[in-house]
């Protein structure tokens, strides 16, 4: 389980200046606050949290949409050498990394250029990176890729609007995988899909992952899906990691109160659970990201908060069994153990 | 010495036209005049002295055009937006020392009742009308004019110094006050045309400043002027002076506070914010009708200020304008005005333009380019180009068939008219034109059929026109362009801004230009088309340079015929005798016509004006010019509403 990480995040922080209208001076929004995380080769790491928790920003930092404000992002080179700092990227490096780290987007409608044919969309990475040779060769590769994601090769002549959401997501997957990457960041890749199609896409990703040896960062908010799909899960709240654990463990026995809350809120597709399931009702609202609470960010809503939580921020600490949580209560548990 | 006669003592004095003024000399001092009804109340209340005290001892008796009028009423007319001061001078401000008669034949007494001219036309002595009062009741004396000549024009700060028309030998005159009613102007060099110039619109500049009022703003007479300058936030005393006393062409002179000799006084200042400019009668006006009634007949004048000619036109058609030709009486409007005569209740009067031609195309005979100069300077080439034009067709198309083919020469109405001069070189004869051009060495043609200059370039003339001034020019130019194309000469039409046209003309960087042919009646006053006498002598700008200063780098020595003209003109200036002047001028014009200084197209048809049927004493015909600033010399004070 403790394989060398393929990707490592060290204290990654991402802030945005926010101007709230004319009156106030620009405030700083900490979308991601000091995230440290190792991604192991070949695993599917789920990142979950409610909207605004910073999971998407974190994913975008990794693929290079914007460089983090501080912290480092490290990547193990293909040849397995020591970790390489890829925090700051010029265009050349970005282009180089685009072969290794790729992204699947949430919105199957917005992520495909409606003016280009499927061929143009899927072949674009090849062209940008100078691969694939002449048009015929490109077409062959695109056709092969399309078949791999479950589309007929003749789809390449059509435009995105001719496809349903699930099919479009397949096109997006084809674009992401055609260069043979090592890491794929799937940002809410199935959230916009209907249940029946969602399963198809997840299964497809599962197959491709096995076939291509991918490492997948699966960003999502549907805990059921995350449980079914991920090996390990990282829970985010207010830009911070509050818990990281193997999926089975996490769902069986959440270590962080927030994780508990999350799990308890998921409506289970079983009417018999009505009234049997312990529903933890959260106090108040998600804090304003511009006015982060002192101490533990979760303490104002935490059912189990005590004094220390209000004053000191707990670190994400590992318990040794592959589980880590940022909670004083967890700390207590750990020291007890 | 009776009114209207010259100073009889010196028989060497040249008789200037006063004799011709029909009724004036014979008119006895009118008596038993009635008080003006609209002023009666003021007189009765003692706010105004009675009529007898207001009228001069020797009022100017104006013979009405039709009949004795009656008092009352308003003259409504329109002004263009932007200081339309020229129009005001013409209609309300024509009160010079000496004036033109209604026929534009002679200079007649006006504010001056008599004058004497010395030998060589250097010294002029004027006898001023006795008892004339400014609108504030103060007497008008020789001091008023001396103030203008000596304290303003001769002052180093006065912009531009003396006006050009008043200069001779490069300088203005010195004014000597002989007595309160006798003024002497002493010139450095002969100034034979002074009387004529005095009778033009600009001549009024000498009689527009009341010394008593204006001296307040002059450093020579008011030591505290600097304080006024500061208080009024002016640049200098001149600016202060012009703001408070006005200047001939500025709107500021039309203020209620400035005393005037005019028939009507403005009620409010004329400014850019004015929408209607109203005048009321001057109770001290110094003219009477033969029955002794003080003029003007009309109590008020009301000028609507409009930026739109169409607006004025509609108002005229609607009968909201009593008498006017300025701005609205265009060729194109004639038909609509005609159609709306009944609706508007007006009639037409005729305006004979002071133009010998409506379209005068001047070729630059002193072109900077030697080849072009030799070609354009060739009289035969100019003849050819003139004969190549189908004037009849242009007249038909552009001038509604009105007017006849005309070159350069005085109008038939002019005293200087000479048969055959205006008609010279105007026959349409394409064959002749081609032959002349061939003979002039322009035989070779290019592929498009254009003739080539001796150095192989195409014979191509660019003509500068400003259709904004006269829309007909553009139309005519286009037709000339086609006609010349037929004889292998290219005409390129450059529609151009006026400022630029003048710059290029003055730098002598042009081939040709089109302007109107001035003058056709007052030739001697504006002789620039007949000999190189101003910047408007576009046929020979470099010759004009030479006249000004033979050493100027751009100057070119003129050929013999030009020198002959210059000599003739010089003779004219030395003699103040109208007969001599007429002979010299005729010869100058003959030479100009023979040399085709301008290729003319058409003798301009008579213009027109409209006048309400109830608005009387407007002559059926009058000249139209700035030299004879119509309708001023008609004496607008005798207009009345029937």
């Amino acid at each position, binding site marked *: 389980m403790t394989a060398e990480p393929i990707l490592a995040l060290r204290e990654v922080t991402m802030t945005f200046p926010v101007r709230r209208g004319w009156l106030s001076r620009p405030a700083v929004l900490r979308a991601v606050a000091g995230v440290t995380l190792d991604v192991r080769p070949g695993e599917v790491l789920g990142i979950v949290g409610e909207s605004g928790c910073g999971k998407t920003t974190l994913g975008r930092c990794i693929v*290079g*949409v914007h460089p983090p404000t501080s912290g480092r992002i490290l990547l193990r080179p293909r040849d397995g050498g020591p970790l390489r700092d890829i925090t700051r990227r010029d*265009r050349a*490096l*970005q*282009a*180089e*990394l*685009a072969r290794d780290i*790729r*992204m699947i*987007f949430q919105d199957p409608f*917005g*992520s495909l*250029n*409606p003016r*280009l*044919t499927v061929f143009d969309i899927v072949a674009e990475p090849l062209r*940008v*990176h100078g691969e694939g040779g002449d048009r015929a060769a490109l077409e062959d590769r695109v056709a092969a890729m399309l078949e791999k994601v479950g589309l007929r090769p003749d789809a390449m*002549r*059509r*435009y995105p*609007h*001719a496809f*349903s959401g699930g099919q479009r997501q397949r096109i997006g997957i084809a*674009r992401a995988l055609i260069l043979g990457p090592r890491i794929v960041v799937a940002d809410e890749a199935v959230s916009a899909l209907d249940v029946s199609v969602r399963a198809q896409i997840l299964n497809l990703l599962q197959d491709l992952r096995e076939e291509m040896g991918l490492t997948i960062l699966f960003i999502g908010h549907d805990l059921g899906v995350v449980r079914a799909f991920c090996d390990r899960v990282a829970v985010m709240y207010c830009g911070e990691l509050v818990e990281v654990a193997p999926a089975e463990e996490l769902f069986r026995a959440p270590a962080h109160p927030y994780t508990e809350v999350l799990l308890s809120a998921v409506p289970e597709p079983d009417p018999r659970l009505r009234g049997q399931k312990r529903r933890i009702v959260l106090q108040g609202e998600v804090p304003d990201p511009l006015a982060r609470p002192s101490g533990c960010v979760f303490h104002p809503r935490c059912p189990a908060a005590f004094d220390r939580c209000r004053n000191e921020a707990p670190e994400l600490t590992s318990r040794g069994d592959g589980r880590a949580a940022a909670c004083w209560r967890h700390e207590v548990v750990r020291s007890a153990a | 010495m009776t009114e209207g006669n010259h100073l009889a003592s010196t028989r060497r004095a040249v008789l200037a036209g006063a004799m011709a003024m029909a009724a004036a000399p014979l008119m006895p001092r009118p008596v038993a005049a009635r008080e003006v009804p609209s002023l009666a109340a003021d007189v009765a209340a003692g706010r105004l002295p009675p009529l007898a005290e207001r009228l001069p001892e020797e009022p100017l008796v104006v013979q009405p055009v039709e009949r004795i009028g009656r008092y009352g009423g308003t003259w409504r007319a329109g002004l263009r937006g932007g200081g339309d001061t020229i129009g005001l001078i013409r209609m309300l401000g024509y009160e010079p020392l000496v004036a033109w008669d209604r026929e534009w034949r002679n200079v007649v007494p006006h504010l001056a009742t008599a004058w004497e001219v010395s030998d060589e036309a250097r010294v002029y002595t004027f006898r001023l009308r006795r008892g004339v009062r400014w609108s504030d009741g103060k007497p008008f004396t020789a001091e008023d004019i001396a103030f203008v000549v000596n304290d303003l024009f001769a002052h180093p700060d006065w912009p531009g110094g003396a006006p050009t028309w008043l200069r001779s030998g490069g300088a203005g005159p010195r004014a000597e006050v002989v007595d309160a009613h006798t003024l002497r102007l002493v010139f450095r060099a002969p100034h034979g045309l002074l009387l004529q110039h005095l009778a033009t619109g600009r001549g009024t500049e000498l009689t527009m400043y009341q010394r008593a009022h204006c001296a307040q703003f002059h450093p020579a007479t008011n030591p505290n002027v600097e304080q006024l300058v500061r208080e009024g936030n002016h640049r200098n005393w001149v600016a202060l002076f012009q703001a408070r006393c006005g200047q001939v062409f500025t709107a500021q002179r039309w203020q209620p506070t400035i005393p005037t000799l005019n028939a009507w006084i403005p009620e409010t200042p004329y400014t850019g914010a004015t929408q209607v400019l109203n005048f009321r009668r001057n109770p001290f006006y110094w003219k009477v009708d033969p029955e002794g009634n003080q003029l003007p007949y009309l109590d008020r004048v009301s000028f609507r200020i409009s930026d739109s*000619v*169409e607006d004025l*036109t*509609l108002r005229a*058609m609607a009968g909201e304008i009593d008498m006017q030709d300025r701005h609205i009486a*265009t060729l194109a*409007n*004639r*038909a*609509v005005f*005609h*159609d709306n005569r009944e609706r508007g209740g007006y009639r037409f009067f005729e305006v004979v333009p002071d133009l010998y031609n409506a379209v005068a195309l001047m070729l630059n005979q002193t072109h900077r380019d030697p080849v072009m100069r030799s070609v354009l300077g060739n009289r035969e080439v100019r003849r050819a180009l003139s004969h190549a034009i189908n004037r009849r067709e242009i*007249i038909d198309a*552009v001038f*509604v*068939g*009105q007017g006849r083919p005309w070159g350069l020469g005085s109008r038939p109405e002019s005293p200087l008219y000479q048969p055959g001069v205006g008609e010279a070189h105007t026959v349409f004869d394409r064959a002749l034109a081609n032959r002349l051009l061939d003979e002039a060495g322009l035989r070779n043609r290019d592929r498009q059929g254009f003739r080539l200059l001796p150095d192989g370039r195409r014979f191509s003339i660019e003509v500068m026109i400003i*259709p*904004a001034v006269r*829309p007909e020019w*553009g*139309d005519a130019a*286009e*037709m000339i362009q*086609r006609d010349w194309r037929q004889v292998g000469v290219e005409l*390129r*039409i*450059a*529609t151009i*801004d006026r400022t*630029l*046209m003048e710059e*290029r003309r003055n730098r002598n960087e042009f081939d040709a230009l089109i302007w109107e042919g001035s003058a056709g009646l007052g030739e001697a006053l504006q002789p620039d088309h007949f000999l190189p006498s101003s910047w408007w002598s576009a046929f020979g700008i470099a010759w004009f340079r030479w006249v000004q200063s033979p050493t100027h780098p751009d100057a070119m020595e003129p050929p013999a015929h030009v020198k002959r003209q210059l000599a003739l003109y010089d003779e004219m200036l030395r003699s103040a005798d109208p007969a001599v002047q007429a002979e010299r001028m005729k010869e100058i014009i003959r030479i100009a016509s023979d040399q085709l200084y301008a290729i003319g197209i058409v003798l301009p048809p008579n213009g027109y004006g409209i006048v309400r049927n109830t608005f009387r004493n407007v002559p059926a015909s009058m000249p139209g010019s700035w030299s004879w600033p119509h309708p001023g010399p008609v004496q607008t004070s005798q207009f009345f509403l029937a």
Partner: protein
Amino acid sequence: MSAAPLAPPVSSMADPLATASGWRLFWLRFRRHRVAFVSLWIVVALYGVAAFAEFLAPHPPDRTMGRYTYAPPQPFGLFWTDPTTGETAFRPHVDGYRVEIDPVALRRSFVPDATRPVDVCLFPRVEPYRLWGVVPLEHRLFGPCDPNDPFFLFGADRLGRDVLSRTIHGTRISLSVGLIGVALSLLLGIAIGGAAGYVGGALDAAVQRVSEVLRSLPTIPLWLGLAAALPREWDPLTIYFAITVLLSLIGWIELARVVRGRFLALRGEDFVLAARIEGMHPVRVVMRHMVPQVTSHVIATATLAIPAMILAETALSFLGLGLQPPLVSWGVLLQEAQNIRSVAAAPWLFLPGGAVVLAVLCLNFLGDGLRDAADPYDV
């Protein structure tokens, strides 16, 4: 996730729209706008007229017939009844004129006279001329069989020039002023607006400020000043281009605003993000992924800008600062007509105004249709 779709999804592989490109969809949506569709054809026809003006106009624009100044329009007829025999025959003609001269009003009045028909031919032989100054031709589309006969379907102006022919020739300049002006505006607008929208930040702020200043300035004074500043020694054609450039100097603002807004929105779109992550050159990102998205919208905005330019040209001409004769544009024609005399006695001189109205109207409808098709819910 957007609001629950009320209308059912209609696209599928079986649908004919499935293989349609974006442009084809654009076209299909556009065709639903009947008025805009008709307008399109009128605009195309107008530009056709502009292109083939020499051939289509029965006379050269500067041909004067001095005898027919202010001649009213002649009625056109296909059949002619001989008044003497009463026989009717197929004979395309216009009525000739009877001339009455009024010496006082200084005017000739023309009365169309049915007894003196002027025969009208297709492809009559005329004096040789050159189409576009290049192609030598000897025929025009239609005109009087005898070139010396009067033939004034729209009447004649003060020089006896055919108003129809002048209007047709005016089409060329008037429509191209709009087109070229808009093309220049487009260039400026896309470059400036695109840069502002893509780069954002300080550049965006600067562009915003500049365009705010320019938008705050009343345009007419600006145009007046600038038009007055043009060197008059330039030949009319150069002046024409200069005026066009002037018009476009104001026109780019709106386009830049549109482009900027779109670019700002597009910059956040996932497919642009995808291209950027690819490490693509920004210029390529812009050209391949952003520009095509805005084109249809920009075309629509540009179409809407053309009529504004046409109107601006006429307004400038009206104030005496636009194009000048001998160039023939609608503005110039209207400038010549803008007096009471024309309104009262020769209203046909305002027919070029009809052309302006038609062109502006159609271009506006067309632009509206294009915009709706480009983006049904965008202003």
